[in-house]
């Protein structure tokens, strides 16, 4: 059952260092429920590190991270639908193998929906994933992720390396398929393509939060688009 009063995620005093390099520095965030949140920043700003901590792929950090009030672990992994920025399938897998795996492992996964989505993409369920083009793999992974009725969708650079038509497909898929009780975090540095779908944006620069606000408030305050603001904040 989704608890509406609890934020999707609460991050307190989060610091993560890799040797002498600090990827995240005293990050404090409350990620609201039911919003599409843009996690924006240039390459190396700490977006992927933050996402990996949320999803449990990095467990060595200082601070506290809670997902719906719970520390990151097996319970929170069941709530999060994660799209990484790379292909994570074994070489032996066909599209249907991946769908059956998701069906088995996630109680909130809708296998029929996944098959319908890949059918619309023109994908053959018996095709080996490694024989698909990069663009098709990206779309296939997105179909799997969005076929879950998760509490929190975390998409890491879903638009990187795909053509403009594919980007529109990805954004439309996100909008059409996520539940309005859920939250979506999209990390990207391709602002102009995604600005239209965000409710909230977070600017991350060199591991620090520069800005976290609702997009309407931001536009009203600054009289600028998020893309223009991003270029100002992250000017080289």
């Amino acid at each position, binding site marked *: 059952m989704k608890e509406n009063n609890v934020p999707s995620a609460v991050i307190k005093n989060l610091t993560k260092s890799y040797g002498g390099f600090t990827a995240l520095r005293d990050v404090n965030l409350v990620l609201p429920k039911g919003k599409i949140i843009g996690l924006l920043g240039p390459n190396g700003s700490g977006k992927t590190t933050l996402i990996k901590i949320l999803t*449990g792929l990095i*467990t*060595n950090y200082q601070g506290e991270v809670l997902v719906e009030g719970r520390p990151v672990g*097996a319970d929170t992994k069941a709530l999060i639908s994660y799209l990484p920025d790379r292909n*994570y399938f*074994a070489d*032996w897998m066909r599209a249907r*193998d991946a769908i059956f795996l998701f069906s088995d492992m996630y109680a909130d996964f809708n296998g029929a929906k996944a098959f319908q989505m890949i059918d619309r993409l023109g994908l053959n369920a018996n095709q080996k994933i490694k024989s698909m083009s990069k663009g098709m793999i990206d779309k296939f992974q997105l179909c799997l992720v969005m076929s879950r009725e998760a509490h929190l969708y975390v998409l890491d650079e879903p638009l990187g390396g795909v053509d403009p038509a594919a980007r529109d497909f990805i954004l439309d898929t996100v909008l059409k398929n996520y539940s309005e009780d859920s939250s979506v975090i999209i990390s990207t540095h391709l602002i102009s393509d995604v600005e239209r779908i965000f409710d909230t944006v977070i600017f991350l620069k060199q591991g620090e939060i520069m800005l976290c606000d609702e997009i309407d408030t931001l536009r009203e305050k600054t009289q600028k688009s998020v893309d223009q603001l991003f270029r100002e904040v992250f000017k080289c």
Partner: protein
Amino acid sequence: MLGKLLKYEIKSTYREFLGIYCALIASVLLTWTMKLPQLETVGYIASICVFAVMVAAVVIVFISILNAFNKRIFGRQGYLNMTLPASTHQQVCSRLLVSVMWCLITGIVMTISIFLLLQIHGGIFNHMNFGELGDLWTALWENNLVLTIVLILVSILVSIFAIVLSLYCASTVAHLPIFRKFKIVAGILTLVAFSFVESRVVSLLTWMGSGWLNDLGARFSHGVPMAQIPEFVGYLNLIIGIALLITVVFSLAKYFLTTYLLSKHMELE
């Protein structure tokens, strides 16, 4: 969840092992051609291949086990596997159980291969008197050796767990951030360190029990009288039991170290 993880681990790994089993059985069956005058050379080559394949099978099994663990936890497949709604214990246990299963199956296939070879070239089953097996069983039972055999079989099983856990623990230590640039060296040194610590502990325990062991040796140095066989076997079972307990303790330590490091110090790159 553990059952599901086991199912997918078997699905992910069976291709790697079936090939070597087929090669082993095929090379054994090919040695039959030694009996045909026109194919004698093929048979001789096949018999050499059998032993080469057996050695390769053992090496490939352990390399595959280590490779599978590394790929599925620390490689790109880790982005899928380590975000599944499973605890670290379930993740490690599923891989451990499947790895041990493949080791046992490899042992069974090799045993079948050896018996096939003996039958093809020596007709071992043609000369065997299966009635004598009953007499053998009675003798084993009367002299308390059934427990010894059970302890030896359990020790073999526990040793397989111990070897796999050593590989897993060494791999996990090697993937710690501090060893980022020296993974292979760190892994090898960790295995060496395990060996060193275990051998020191065994040496210490042997030294502590040396008085008793020397007395035992002196008592039975001229052979074991029939009447004292059960007593001797009792002492043998005690020694095997202690060795088994030591292996279990070390295996548990490696298991908990592996799961602790994965839970608290994981950094998937």
